[in-house]
């Protein structure tokens, strides 16, 4: 129980806000209320179902595309939520992975050498403001419809946040730590591997996490135009059928999968970078 000295009991400070039940419920309360409101409004029949399907209809549609093999509606709608989801995840992972493979070494070089930064920065800064989605037409001409194009777009989306955070991480390495390593006999190579990289790693991971979020944003758009599978394709195709429930169901799936992957990254960061937090013990 929290300290209550000098506090007047009113509707905001009342004891029931501190009950364990409420504390458990707290993070989900607004979402729950929203869903209930949605269900009620949709049930009142003000809007036709193709404008606003009920939440329960959306869920049913999602589950039926999970389990039910329905030969009448054809490939994208029946029992294919998982393949579509897996395709999107796979594209995100490949594009994002390529982004890491290229952006991290480049970022280390640019953060480490002022010279290289001065040489490469103009090109980077010229390309960076172009939204990844603006590359789609070019990607389709270069790589055709399908996997390569979408991965290319995802790569572009993930690349820049990883690059910028890597550069920032390498640049903010404590200069004294580098000098300390030198006086302990470290070579340039050892300084890179044993001081610069470990110290820049949290920042690199932050870039990777932001890149992951952007990868999800870009993959959906890219799949709408340049692919035959994937969640983006699924909801775009559902639009032709006015299957609003599946569109919304697909959107929810995208949200849930992308937030799960980003959360996984955050948990990993907390685990790997314990050394950033901590309290003082002893004197």
């Amino acid at each position, binding site marked *: 129980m929290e300290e209550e000295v000098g506090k007047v009991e009113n509707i905001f400070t009342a004891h029931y806000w501190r009950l364990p039940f409420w504390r458990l419920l707290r993070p989900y309360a607004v979402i729950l209320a929203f869903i209930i409101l949605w269900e009620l409004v949709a049930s009142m029949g003000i809007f036709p179902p193709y404008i606003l399907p009920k939440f329960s209809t959306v869920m049913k549609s999602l589950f039926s595309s999970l389990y039910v093999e329905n030969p009448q509606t054809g490939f994208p709608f029946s029992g294919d939520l998982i393949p579509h989801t897996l395709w999107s995840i796979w594209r995100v992972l490949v594009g994002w992975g390529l982004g890491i493979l290229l952006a991290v070494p480049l970022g280390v070089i640019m953060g480490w050498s002022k010279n290289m930064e001065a040489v490469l920065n103009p090109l980077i800064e010229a390309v960076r403001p172009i939204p990844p989605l603006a590359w789609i037409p070019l990607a389709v001409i270069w790589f055709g419809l399908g996997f390569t194009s979408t991965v290319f777009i995802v790569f572009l989306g993930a690349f820049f946040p990883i690059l910028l955070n890597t550069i920032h991480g390498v640049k903010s390495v404590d200069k004294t730590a580098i000098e300390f390593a030198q006086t302990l006999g470290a070579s340039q190579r050892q300084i890179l591997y044993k001081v610069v990289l470990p110290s820049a790693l949290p920042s690199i991971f932050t870039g990777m996490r932001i890149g992951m979020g952007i990868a999800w944003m870009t993959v959906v758009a890219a799949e709408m135009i340049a692919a035959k599978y994937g969640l983006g394709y699924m909801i775009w195709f559902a639009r032709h059928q006015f299957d609003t429930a599946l569109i919304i169901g697909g959107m929810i799936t995208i949200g849930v999968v992308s937030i799960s992957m980003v959360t996984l990254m955050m948990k990993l960061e907390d685990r790997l970078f314990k*050394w950033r937090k901590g309290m003082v013990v*002893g004197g």
Partner: protein
Amino acid sequence: MKVAIKIDNVTKKFGDFTCLESINLEIFKGEIHTLLGPSGCGKTTLLRMIAGLESPTEGKILNNTQVITGPSASRGFIFQHGAAFPWRTVLKNIEFGLELKGIDKEKRREICRKYIKLVGLEGFENYYPHQISGGMRQKMVLATVLANGPEIILMDEPFGALDAQTRSYMQRELLRIWEETQKTVVFVTHSIREAMVISSRVSVFGTRPGRILHTYDLNRRIGSQKHRDLSEERASRLEYELYTKLQPFMGHENGEAG
């Protein structure tokens, strides 16, 4: 007396600013030599030049008979705010230098255990630097440097950021460890009292340009560190002498004689 470091007519300029002018000094093997002076007198710059982190504009610095051209594991450096590697535990910090040399894990652990014991950090091996206090962190850094087996230890106001009690405790600890290891120590401080507690000899610096005003042999004047009593009259006399020597260079700064 064997000479560990010979500073031969060294001048250091940053652009037009003359930081240090014509420094000549010999640091003896096994002594604690303190560079004492107000801020801006170039004492830290001189220490960094001995480390090889900066190079003299004129003159040269010799370690034994070799001209110093860059940093080396034989000259350990302890920074004012205790540079360390925060992503490594205390043990892994202390191992750092040995790891660089490619010494295998068993041997590393064995050496580290000895120095962890020497500085009194047993039980804290698996803590991260952020989890221990400032004084313990400086002990960890000292152990890191000692485990690396340097010939000379350069200390740049290593206790400056600590509170008064911890500071005087660390001074006693330094003396104890120094007696055990017999290392040559070059120590930078602006505190007269600290210089008098720990030094074998003290070089007093003046400013604009930074230069050595006088080098005092404390062992001769007030006895060796172990048997030194700063309440004796000869100690008070020396303290007053150091104070008057430094006084013209204190400027607006509080010289912190305590």
